[in-house]
């Protein structure tokens, strides 16, 4: 956001927010220990708006739940923006000082009247109005989002449409106000920070910046290719075209987790070489030519991970390693050795110190400091620097601290790529359950009393129309495939919308159905919006 790839605010700031907007996030189930702070804020009198097609556990705590139609977020955001401008609730002083492109933006949202937005999103216009006025009038307000915003074909545009709202109202760069993507995995923030992005070096330094490259080349002792690499989705496309021939997968299970899983598995199976490094023999590992058995990073290794509030924290070994497993880092270093590289940094602390020498925002984070306290939030440029609680304070400085003004972005409502039609009349969206995680590799191994397995959740109206009972086996199909699932009638879904988690591919291989239309800028697939049908299951063996 505005030049830094991280949430702008610290968790505890949300306790001082007057208005909290959870947009495409069910934090109550997916980020419970963050949500406890939202609850504290509510006790202090904050207003909570939850924007989600499902009436989620988080929505139960909301002052107002806005149950928008899947994939209409931009229409909603633009209508909120239009209403804020129309009611003269925008912060013109902030806009003039800290932003660019306002006039063009203002024109671009003109079309998104409350009435049009109601038609597109399904949310009553007075509710959109209430959100707009509350957000703009609050002294402090935060927008928080997760995959409900990013698992769409236009993920980046969705995010930009939310950033527009913060720029319009000055709800960023100050204590209590901000834009916060809640990260879904314990080190997805750290992965990006460390340059596990096709176009970035560690510390978000651009790979096409010759000066940045030179600095890294001197330490790495090798030339860095200035061409950006491929992100995951482009890798799969290159695999389909037989251009990408070898893949090294570390701690990921794409054979289960990719949208349109059948196509993803085909791509994996036609590789010349598939190397998988994991703690379990996942479905992806079963397809591999070589498996490197890894130890459990967070319980058996030294290192660091970085959380959603940009906090770098230490992980430490608590139990010894089993049999033939090795630390992830040791495997990578040994592989490099055998390939003839001669890396100078050995062991987690040396590697980290190398990062600190190359990434200014991590420079002050010595292991000693990380071990002494509760971790440090980047940017932390020197060992005297306390770390940074919230980003973009420069937006409020007269000269913007030498930064370029933050641009408004014109975003256009398009809706999901896969349209509903008479053959596939239902919208499938996927998400998380409280007690499970991703493809279940870790979470299936403990005896959760609240585990419900994997069902296809639907409204009573849809169940009646199809003629199925609660608990009945049904055939669920998209144009990519069919699977049998157990129907579950729930009260938190509108007619036309069905829901499933993705934690139990062994019970229901849901990603055989999901949609792999993806976002050109981020490579994220549109997991949140597939067109499907549900039919009564007819057991052909018995007929």
């Amino acid at each position, binding site marked *: 956001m505005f030049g830094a790839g991280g949430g702008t605010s610290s*968790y*505890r700031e949300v306790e001082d927010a007057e208005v909290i907007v959870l947009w495409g996030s069910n934090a109550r189930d*997916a*980020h*419970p*220990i*963050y949500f*406890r702070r939202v*609850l504290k804020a509510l*006790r202090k009198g904050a207003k909570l708006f939850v924007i989600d097609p499902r009436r989620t556990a988080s929505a139960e*705590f909301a002052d107002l739940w806005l149950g928008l139609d899947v994939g209409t977020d931009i229409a909603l955001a633009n209508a909120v923006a239009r209403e804020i401008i129309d009611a003269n609730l925008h912060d013109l002083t902030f806009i003039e000082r800290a932003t660019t492109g306002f006039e063009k933006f203002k024109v671009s949202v003109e079309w998104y009247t409350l009435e049009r937005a109601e038609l597109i999103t399904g949310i009553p216009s007075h509710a959109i109005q209430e959100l707009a006025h509350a957000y703009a009038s609050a002294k402090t307000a935060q927008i928080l989002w997760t995959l409900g915003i990013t698992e769409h074909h236009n993920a980046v545009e969705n995010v930009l449409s939310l950033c527009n709202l913060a720029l319009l109202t000055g709800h960023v760069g100050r204590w209590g106000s901000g834009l916060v993507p*809640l*990260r*879904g*995995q*314990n*080190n*997805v*923030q750290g992965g990006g920070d460390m340059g596990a992005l096709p176009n970035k070096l560690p510390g978000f330094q651009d790979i096409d910046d010759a000066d940045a490259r030179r600095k890294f080349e001197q330490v790495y002792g090798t030339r860095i290719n200035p061409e950006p690499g491929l992100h995951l989705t482009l890798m799969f496309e290159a695999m389909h075209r037989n251009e990408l021939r070898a893949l090294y997968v570390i701690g990921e299970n794409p054979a289960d987790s990719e949208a349109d899983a059948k196509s993803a598995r085909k791509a994996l199976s036609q590789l010349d070489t598939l190397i998988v490094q994991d*703690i*379990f023999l996942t479905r992806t590992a079963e397809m591999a030519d070589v498996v490197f058995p890894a*130890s*459990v*990073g*967070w*319980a*058996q290794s030294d290192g660091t*991970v*970085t*959380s*959603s*509030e940009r*906090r770098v*924290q*230490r*992980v*430490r*070994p*608590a*139990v*010894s390693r*089993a*049999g*033939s*497993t090795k630390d992830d880092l040791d495997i990578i270093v040994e592989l490099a050795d055998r390939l003839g590289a001669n890396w100078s940094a050995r062991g987690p602390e040396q590697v980290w110190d190398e990062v600190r020498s190359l990434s200014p925002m991590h420079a002050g984070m010595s292991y000693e400091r990380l071990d002494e306290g*509760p*971790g440090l939030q980047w940017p932390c440029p020197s060992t005297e620097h306390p770390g940074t609680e919230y980003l973009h304070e420069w937006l409020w400085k007269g000269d913007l601290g030498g930064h370029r003004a933050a641009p408004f972005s014109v975003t256009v409502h398009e809706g999901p790529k896969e349209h509903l039609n008479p053959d596939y009349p239902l919208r499938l969206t996927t998400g998380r359950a*409280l*007690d*499970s*995680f991703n493809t279940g*590799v*870790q*979470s299936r*191994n*403990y*005896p*959760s*009393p*609240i585990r419900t397995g994997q069902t296809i959740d639907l409204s009573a109206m849809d169940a009646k129309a199809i003629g199925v009972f609660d608990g009945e086996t049904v055939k669920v199909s998209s144009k990519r495939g069919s699977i049998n699932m157990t129907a579950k009638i729930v009260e938190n879904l509108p007619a036309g919308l069905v829901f499933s988690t993705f934690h139990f591919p062994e019970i229901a291989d849901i990603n055989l159905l999901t949609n792999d239309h993806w976002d050109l800028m981020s490579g994220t697939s549109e997991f949140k919006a597939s067109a499907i049908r549900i039919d009564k299951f007819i057991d052909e063996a018995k007929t």
Partner: protein
Amino acid sequence: MSDMSDDATKISIFLNGNKVTVQKDLTILEASSKNMVDIPTICWSEHLEPANACRLCVVEVEGSKTLVPSCSRRVESGMNILTESPRVRASRRMILEFLATTNDLSQAPEIVTLFDDYGVDIDRYERPTRISEEVRIQDELYIRDYSKCVLCYKCVDACGEQAQNTFAIAFSGRGFDTQVSTEFDVGLPESNCVYCGNCVAVCPTNALQFKTEFDLRDASNWRPEDQTVTTTVCSYCGVGCNLELHTQGDQIVKVTSPTEHDVTNGNLCIKGRFGWEYVNLVMKDDR
């Protein structure tokens, strides 16, 4: 008596005869703690509001007819506080004797350790009424042992609006029949419980106990003296909760979270609290 301090946020009090200067918004308990005067308590916890339930923290305040609970009473300028007067000590001794008479405190070392100091005689009462009830084991994550429950309110507050907002448990009954209960006393798996374990984490007597600990105790194999605690970060979502992995014999046996760490203040969700079993599985798996 006027405030002698220049700083308007501070006042002077007399703590066991010694004049000390403290922040004026502190409770007597907090002010004492900051001045190295320990006051025993069962029901107080830094991240919960004072419940005024156990009465162990009472102190004598000059001018007050009754003893006052130090956990909830704020300091006032010139307050003359006695934390260990004969009256205070007699009151604490009686409370401890009542608890020892009705409850099984065998797994509450922090309470038992006070017995000698306060001269507790656990046989003082001739016909003690003990709470005895079979341990409730309804799932593989926690057990409830009502014979150990001292009704301190911590679990109810942690489950309710002070932390978890799940409201799976509350008090039912009156007087001696008061109990922490689920709605209509249904089993925990049938209740609203989301198994965050935050109630277990705050329980001072092991009335709420992780099943792993219970099983090891049952097999006479719970050995705190052989346990190591390692702080690391949870492997699930991106919030970054710190976990304290309690290990015994190279196996994880319990997970807690540091109360002083701002991200969790000791709270966890079901995944962080219990989702570690695969580590033990990987350990056993000789590949």
